[in-house]
């Protein structure tokens, strides 16, 4: 009993770490660009499909290279979309214009993916990672969850260092505080925007690869992942990377535990958990 609980908790935390990554990306773009990027979910699926394609071409490719390939591909795509479309949409005073623009981009990307790969679910297996496991104190931990956990922690640490310790991070924080004044002191806003979009897309792709290895992926998966990312951002607080990971872990644990007791639940309990917290916050007035 205790053993199963620990294993469930472990699974929940690893899944939650991935949710934290996608939420942190969305929070970062919202904090800096003031745009809710509705094509964020598509970066997750495209990252996964890039990995599927890479493994299809070179089946023996080590996981680090698969992750790197997905990261670079989606970072480039994210940078391109930001520079070509979203930045322009941000020039309009109505904040809904960029959000709806990213929604249009998401629909285009999703259906382009359907046209190129088909609508079916795809699995992804890199280096037999899904099968191998490690025993520890009578409990077995899959190698994949361990890799996932390490990656999630790695992303968390890198992102924190990037924001807190580097010139880029300084510019990001300045831009998020006071965009006008940041321009006055010479911060190149557009350039920072593109870097942030690339970073968020790249991290989303990393999460996408691991999510595809955990379960499977279809071109339509992006929609559910986007919603989870959004829930993570609302629960974790804006622009808070730590909050994003905490919220991600909460939702991850809810999903794993609920699917244990109700196999067909899908994301129902995850969404219900989110909504319940929202209602409680609304009633207690802790929502702005």
């Amino acid at each position: 009993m205790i053993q199963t609980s620990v294993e469930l908790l472990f699974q929940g935390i690893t899944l939650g770490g991935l949710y934290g990554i996608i939420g942190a990306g969305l929070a970062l773009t919202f904090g800096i660009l003031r745009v809710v990027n509705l094509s964020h979910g598509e970066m997750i699926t495209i990252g996964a499909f890039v990995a599927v394609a890479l493994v299809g071409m070179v089946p023996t490719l080590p996981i680090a290279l698969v992750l790197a390939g997905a990261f670079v591909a989606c970072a480039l795509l994210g940078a391109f979309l930001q520079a070509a479309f979203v930045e322009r949409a941000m020039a309009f005073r109505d904040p809904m214009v960029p959000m709806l623009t990213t929604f249009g981009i998401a629909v285009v990307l999703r259906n382009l993916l359907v046209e190129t790969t088909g609508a079916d679910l795809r699995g992804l297996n890199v280096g037999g990672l899904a099968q191998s496991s490690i025993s520890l104190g009578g409990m077995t931990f899959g190698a994949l969850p361990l890799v996932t956990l390490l990656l999630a922690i790695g992303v968390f640490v890198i992102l924190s260092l990037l924001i807190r310790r580097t010139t880029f991070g300084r510019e990001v924080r300045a831009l998020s505080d006071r965009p006008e004044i940041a321009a006055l002191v010479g911060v190149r806003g557009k350039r920072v925007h593109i870097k942030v979009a690339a970073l968020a897309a790249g991290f989303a792709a990393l999460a996408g690869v691991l999510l595809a290895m955990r379960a499977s992926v279809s071109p339509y998966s992006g929609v559910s992942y986007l919603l989870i990312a959004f829930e993570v951002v609302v629960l974790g607080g804006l622009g808070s990377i730590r909050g994003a990971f905490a919220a991600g872990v909460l939702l991850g644990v809810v999903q794993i535990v609920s699917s244990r007791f109700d196999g067909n639940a899908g994301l129902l309990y995850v969404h219900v958990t989110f909504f319940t917290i929202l209602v409680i916050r609304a009633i207690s007035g802790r929502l702005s």
Partner: protein
Amino acid sequence: MPLLEIDTLAAHHGELVALDGLSFALAEHETLALVGANGAGKTTLMRVLCGLMAPTRGTIRVQGHALKPGDPLAAARAGLALVPEGRLLFDSLTIEENLLIGQSGRTGIWSLDEIYGLFPVLREKRRLSPAALSGGQQQMAAIGRALAANPRVLLCDEISLGLSPLVTDEVYVALKRVRDEGTALIIVDQDVTRAARIADRVACMFKGRVTYETQAATANAATLKNAYFGLTA
């Protein structure tokens, strides 16, 4: 050639005329005190100069080169730096980071050490958030942030607003040093006499125009007051 040359500059807030064909020039090393009642257009002028707002007409030249209108990056590159009204420091950055982000790559005497030399209290508080500083210390940090860019012209908007006389004195001592190091200054202040004391020239704005201009040494209090209130002498 003047350092900064403003020619028939006009700017509007919607229908409202904020700057109405304003012209003046600023020489190298010169300090100009800009005075005028609320709504005279001083803050609008500052915003237009540093590119936060696009003029509807007219040009701004720095050392003879026309400035791209409404582009804060271009203004920063040309050597204009603003100490904005209300300080507007970056709250997510420490004091030192606020200074570091001001560095624009232009070289000059205003290194981090020099700025700390000018405002020793900032060195003490360099690891703190601006929110933990007093209003006067925040104003010093805002001046420091602008100085870090080693600007040709330092624009100071409402420099003494909300500061005690004692702190204002301290700020003016620092501005005098900045002037003596060779940076040109435009100082906007409600406190006309204090601003005039360190300025070479005093200009008075009324309804979006410069209505009166004089050498600070020969400034006549009565004439200045008339210009301030829009009365013709």
